[in-house]
């Protein structure tokens, strides 16, 4: 005896967004899109590799040139900083507390990227005793985003497990893949703000080998404050 299908189910299956054909079509579209994204990702990654290499070489060239001429080459001031909060929540005065909140450094060993300009430098000045910060290089930025990069999706913290995720959110800023994201952050491009806010604040581990003393500044053989390029080694220990 044939199975009796209820009328409501028959009607439901007829309706467009449930039918098999529509689902198939959607899936095909999606697959096509994914392929596009991956090809773009490949090409852009290639482009960026060249770009980073060129930048390095250029820097070296200019320095050598200056040396030859007997003058000095003043490197451009860093545009990007990575801040890590190294003190806990207890006993933080209101102003630094507010600034740490604004920078999304709400818990110990959380890290964020920040664009360096006069205003942000002044903010950093206030929170120096609670953070350590410096100028990350490409590999650090990459490692952070690849290994510990979580996206803010629907007010949720989700690990970035595909380029599709990035495409969906940042396509309008021409950021479609991981390397795009890394590039935007590292070179502090036009859409740095959007790329950065797409990323949830990084949750890092306490450093392997520990800190010397957080109470002192880095300059005084402690840990807090600006440590310029040494942030890279620290992040390696904390990632």
């Amino acid at each position, binding site marked *: 005896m044939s199975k009796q299908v209820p009328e*409501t189910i028959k*009607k*439901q299956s007829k*309706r*467009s*967004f449930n039918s098999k054909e529509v689902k198939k079509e959607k899936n095909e579209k999606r697959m096509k899109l994914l392929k596009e994204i*991956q*090809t773009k*990702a*490949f090409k852009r*990654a*290639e482009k960026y*590799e060249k770009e980073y290499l060129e930048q390095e070489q250029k820097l070296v060239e200019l320095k050598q040139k200056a040396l030859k001429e007997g003058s000095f080459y003043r490197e451009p001031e860093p545009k990007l900083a990575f801040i890590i909060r190294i003190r806990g929540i207890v006993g933080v005065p209101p102003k630094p507390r507010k600034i740490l909140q604004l920078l999304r450094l709400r818990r110990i060993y959380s890290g964020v990227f920040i664009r360096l300009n006069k205003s942000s430098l002044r903010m950093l000045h206030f929170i120096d005793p609670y953070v350590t910060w410096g100028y990350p290089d490409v590999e650090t930025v990459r*490692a952070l985003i*690849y*290994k510990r990069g979580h996206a803010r*999706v*629907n007010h949720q913290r*989700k*690990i*970035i*497990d*595909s*380029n*599709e*995720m990035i495409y969906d959110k940042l396509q309008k800023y021409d950021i479609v*893949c*991981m*390397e795009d994201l890394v590039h935007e952050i590292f070179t502090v491009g036009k859409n740095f703000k959007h790329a950065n806010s797409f990323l949830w604040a990084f949750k890092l581990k306490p450093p392997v080998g520990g800190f010397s003393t957080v109470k002192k500044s880095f300059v005084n053989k402690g840990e807090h404050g600006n440590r310029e390029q040494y942030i890279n080694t620290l992040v390696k220990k904390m990632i």
Partner: protein
Amino acid sequence: MTTQQLRPIVSVFPIKGKVKTIKQVPLPSVFSAPIRPDVVRFVHTNMAKNNRQAHAVSTTAGEQTSATSWGTGRAVARIPRVKGSGTGRSGQAAFGNMCRGGRMYAPKKVWRKWHRKINTNQKRYAVCSAIAATAVTPLVMSRGHRVNKLPELPLVVSDQLQSLTKTRQAVKFLKFIGAYRDVEKVIRTKKTRVGQGKYRNRRHVLRKGPMVVYARNLGIKKAFRNIPGVETASVYTLNLLKLAPGSQMGRFIIWTESAFKLLEDIYGSWEKPSKFKSGFYLPRPVMVNTDVERIIKSDQVQTVLRNRRPRSRKYGKKIQRADPYEDMSVMVKLNPYYKTKLQKQKELEEKNKKERKEIVDKSRKEYEDWLYFSEEEEEEEEEEEEEGSDEDREIEVLSDEN
């Protein structure tokens, strides 16, 4: 309700002979009234209080002493104690609710509110609900009535029933129509009351059997009076306490034809008011169609809904992804260029290595050549000069060590 203009039809059965339809009557509108167990429960609990008799404790109970407290300093509690001596009672505590022979806490008074006023409309609502429930077989069954063998529910019977005078006739009728099983149940489960009611003239407890509702009493009352469990009632004065005993709806009712027809006049409908209850219309249900699932799935609703939002299952679940620096497949998914990059790095490394090797080899060769030639020169020089300079020797020594 416009949907109720087409009223279903109920069969009228004879009281003897063959169980077959002799007539068909339309179902009165009352039976489509909303069935509201909450209203029935409320009205029933309040109505049931109305046949209570006042009771109280004697006003003087426990107060018929002239007891006074002894006060402090006598190594006894400060409760009032009975005065005097010469009897066991003297010095005993009195007056308190905790005392033996004392008055109770808050002695019961006769002026307690025994009866309850209920809004007339609420009462009528409850009765309508209860009547409607008597036509719903599952409700009648769940109340406990044995209605399996009945030809139909609601059970309507010819008016000849009203003229029955003998109990024997009544029993015969009940057996004929299939209602006697319910009466048998009542007889079978007659028990002595549990509790003190048994010696307060309420010795036995009976279940409720069928209720016979008539329009005119031409002997029917007396005919059914002695049958255990069976109650009779005039259709003009239907009592909620009988229609929904224990506030449980679904009494098994046997209607006479004229009583059944009168229901339409007594309770009215949604269009026509009742003829007997002034200004009373049947209560309206909150929802006309209570099949919510069917409403939601109907075409009229579904075609107007927007499309379901796509569930982003692709990254909806909490996905544990491997570390891309440890798992190559994850890395390649995120950065398809990675493998090529590694390859190029490797090639570059090898190229550099090769170049370096060439340079090192070349310089080494040059140095060795220079050494070789310098040795030859020295030999020539030695031949020319009788003495070799110390410096040259030193150099030679050094080069040997190298």
